[in-house]
């Protein structure tokens, strides 16, 4: 395909499953179409615990938001936010700190439109249509500029999004670009799919196959591969670990085992 000029719009194809709507389906939402549910069911068949993964991912995100709030951060940049099903960053953050500001970023036009509807009337939360693959477009987005003060610490949330970037899209460099725009004391939150600790490799492969049919295939990475994403950040305790083990509120239960298939880590910028 030839390069399109940046001002040429992307089309919307509702016959292609969308990762954010599949995710909503996993979380028990109805913000999805049959094409998404069909894909979601296939993933669930391959990985029966996937719904729990999503839930745990939401939970760890909430804990990470609280971690940031505890460090006095009230600005949040959530890239790859998807469909706002429940337990969103602004709900958690603004419940704890009314002055908290949240900028969501997504490249799915439907998710953006939906987020816009949900956030309507909220003066301190907004959505920007942009793509992580073009970090400058995020940093220079008028909505981000309007709500965030990059001279003050920001919590950069890359929750369950980096595993949709291929290595040749140079995720570490994209993160570094974002990092350079952040003030010292900023926080980086990453959760990332992994094949480490996987109960069934076959299931993972099947899930990959399903995601290949979406516009965004999944690239799982190991702890060692995720660690360079924190370049320039000091990774806080307990390091890069399965989501359930990242500063849990309560001891985990046996039924949470599938949760081991997503890694979580939080870094502090010096």
């Amino acid at each position, binding site marked *: 395909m030839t390069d399109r000029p940046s*001002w040429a719009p992307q089309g919307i194809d509702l016959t292609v499953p969308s990762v954010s709507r599949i995710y909503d389906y996993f979380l028990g939402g109805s913000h999805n179409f049959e094409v998404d549910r069909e894909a979601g069911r296939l993933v669930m068949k391959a990985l029966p615990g996937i719904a729990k993964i999503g839930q745990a991912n939401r939970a760890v995100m909430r804990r990470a938001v609280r971690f940031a709030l505890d460090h006095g951060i009230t600005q949040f940049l959530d890239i790859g936010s998807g469909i706002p099903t429940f337990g969103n960053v602004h709900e958690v953050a603004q419940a704890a700190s009314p002055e908290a500001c949240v900028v969501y970023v997504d490249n799915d*036009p439907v998710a953006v439109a939906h987020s816009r509807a949900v956030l309507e009337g909220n003066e301190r939360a907004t959505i920007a249509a942009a793509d992580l693959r073009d970090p400058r477009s995020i940093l220079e987005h008028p909505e981000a500029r309007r709500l965030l003060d990059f001279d003050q610490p920001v919590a950069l949330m890359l929750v369950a999004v980096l595993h949709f970037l291929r290595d040749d899209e140079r995720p570490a460099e994209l993160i570094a670009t974002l990092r350079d725009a952040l003030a010292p004391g900023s926080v980086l939150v990453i959760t990332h799919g992994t094949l480490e600790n996987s109960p069934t490799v076959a299931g993972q492969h099947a899930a990959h196959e399903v995601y290949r049919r979406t516009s965004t295939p999944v690239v799982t990475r190991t702890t060692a591969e995720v660690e360079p994403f924190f370049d320039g950040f000091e990774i806080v305790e307990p390091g890069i670990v399965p989501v359930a083990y990242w500063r849990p509120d309560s001891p985990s239960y046996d039924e949470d085992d599938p949760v081991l298939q997503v890694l979580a880590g939080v870094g502090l910028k010096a």
Partner: protein
Amino acid sequence: MTARPAQAAAEGDTAPGEAPDDNLRRFAAIWSRAIYPVTATSMTRAEFEDHLVPLARILRDTLRAAPFDPRAAVQVGTALIAAHCTDPEALPSILGIIDAYLVLYCPPQPALPADESRVRCARLQHAVSVGFSQALRERTLREQESLSRAALAAQAEAESALAASEARFRAVFECAAVGIGIADLDGRVLEVNDAMARMFGGRERLMRHNVSYWAQADKEPDQRALSAELLRGERDGYHMEKAYPRPDGSVLWANLQVSLLRDPAGNPQYQMALMEDITERRGLLSRLRHQATHDALTGLPNRALFFERLDQALTASGPTGRIGVCYLDLDGFKTVNDSLGHAVGDRLLVAVADRLSDCVTGPDQIVARIGGDEFVALCTDPADQHEVTDLATRILQALSTPVLVDGRELPVHGSIGIVHGPVGDRTAADVLRSADITMYRAKDLGGNRYEVADPDSDARAITRHGLTNGLPGALERGEFFIEYQPLIGLVDGAVHGAEALVRWCHPAHGILGPDRFIPLAEASGQIVPLGRWVLEQAARQAREWQDEHDGDGAPRVNVNLSPIQLHHPDLVAEVARVLDETGLSPRSLCLEVTESALIGADEDQLKPLRQIADLGVDIALDDFGTGYSNLSSLRWLPLSVLKLDRAFTRGMRQHPADPVDLKIVEGVVSLAHGLGLTVTVEGIETRTQAEHLRALGCDTGQGWYYARPGPPDRLHRLTLADAS
């Protein structure tokens, strides 16, 4: 929609002595343990359990309420959905725990019969189910609706962005200065913009034809191949300059870029042509090129183009290839320019150029104007020398008719130097120099002819050329000197004087006689300073002899005057100045003038000579008898000496002498003496000649018999010998 405990179920109703909240909490804990795993909530277990306590309270209070109204439990189902407990599979767990534990932990107060409690519990479960189902359905519908709205909004946004984008593209398409056309893969023209329609003289005409018609307008196999590759998807585009016929018969030159448009899957879909009209640019370029390579006056190729072609001819065919060059210079063109003006001269040149153009017979021949009246014809790889000489002949023939300018017939002739032969290692400059030299040879041979270059002539001419170039400096460097040939009195045998003869001691060619360089000096104008120098030197020498002889009987000196000197306006003043500066008696100086220099001279032109004669200087008529000697002119020319050419004396070398020659010389001497002229005879080589001439009454003699030309001191010795 958040679950709020019904106001009806007031805490105050609890019976004293119980710890109702403990039991309520216990029930909530059991309930939470069953539901949490199937709930997609981001709450922690503890939070979720806390969240369930008010719901448990509603159930308890409803169970106890009198009158019993299970509808209050509907909100419990609603609240569970609100807490994201949306999985239908959670419902059995929700109801199962109520069924098994609610009555146990929160028994109705006052106590009811077991059956009644069971019935109430069952009806509570029905109500929770209703609330759960209704809320789930509402939530599902709401979420579906909000998603649909979002999808529509996103689509609308994308469409409006697309529309804006299309509008921009449409504007670019419509307003572009370049022509844009889109066709399908079968070559059907689908759309063209205004610029392209203008280029081709109308949209209808463009759309009427298939792309293949336009592509093969000038039958280009290259483009056909490129186009086929493009349509097969093997290339994404190609670029070329192309000529298209326009309806008015003119030609459109276009800079054409054809690109392949693919569908999202990458399959070829359309072909697009971008076309820039470069007709004017090409026209301008070719006009500029024509101006740079053609002569503005005659329209012939100019010097630059000629050398370009000559270089091509010299390099393209290799050393074995042949070339032919005819270098033409008009005879006497300068006279036309000087006498009739440049306007006439220019028209003459234009007429000549036209005639020359007609002499060219093929594309391998060109005629160029490379200088004022210099033209060159070039034959590339001629078959033989005849082809070149034929061309030269045609040129001379073409010039044989006078040119009519302003009703005046101007005769026009030219001299042509031909260079023909293998290219060898010659450069363009070599070829042209050789042609130039040969042209001058043709001119020297009388003009209106051609000569063919040969190496010997070239070498001579090159020497001639070198001498001409060396002349001006030679005078400054003192390379000239003068020898004197005695003039002997035939009666007394004494030295009466000497003729001054100039020599050039050339650094490369040795000592050169006047016949080698005087014509060159005359042609180049150097004769004026050189002649002045000779006059000065000879006069100074004669003055020395005067001093040595105490005036009386000192040898006189004869100095040659060239026709050009004769016409030089300063001549009289020069002669007077030299006489004045040297102090030489005018009687001791004789200026020799050739007969040919005086032919046709009118009284004005003779005036200087008369003035010189009035100064007391003798004038000798040199080489008398070589031309058409006009005897009557002897009457009025300011002469005092007649020098008979050696031709008259050849017949007197032997005994007996040629009687005719004797008669002629006798007659001439008689005539001369009758007019008061003395007679000098040149070229006396034998004693016999000398005796005959003395007998015939000649006054003075000159020649090898007496002495060859030599340095002045030798003459001095001779005169001293005479005197003794």
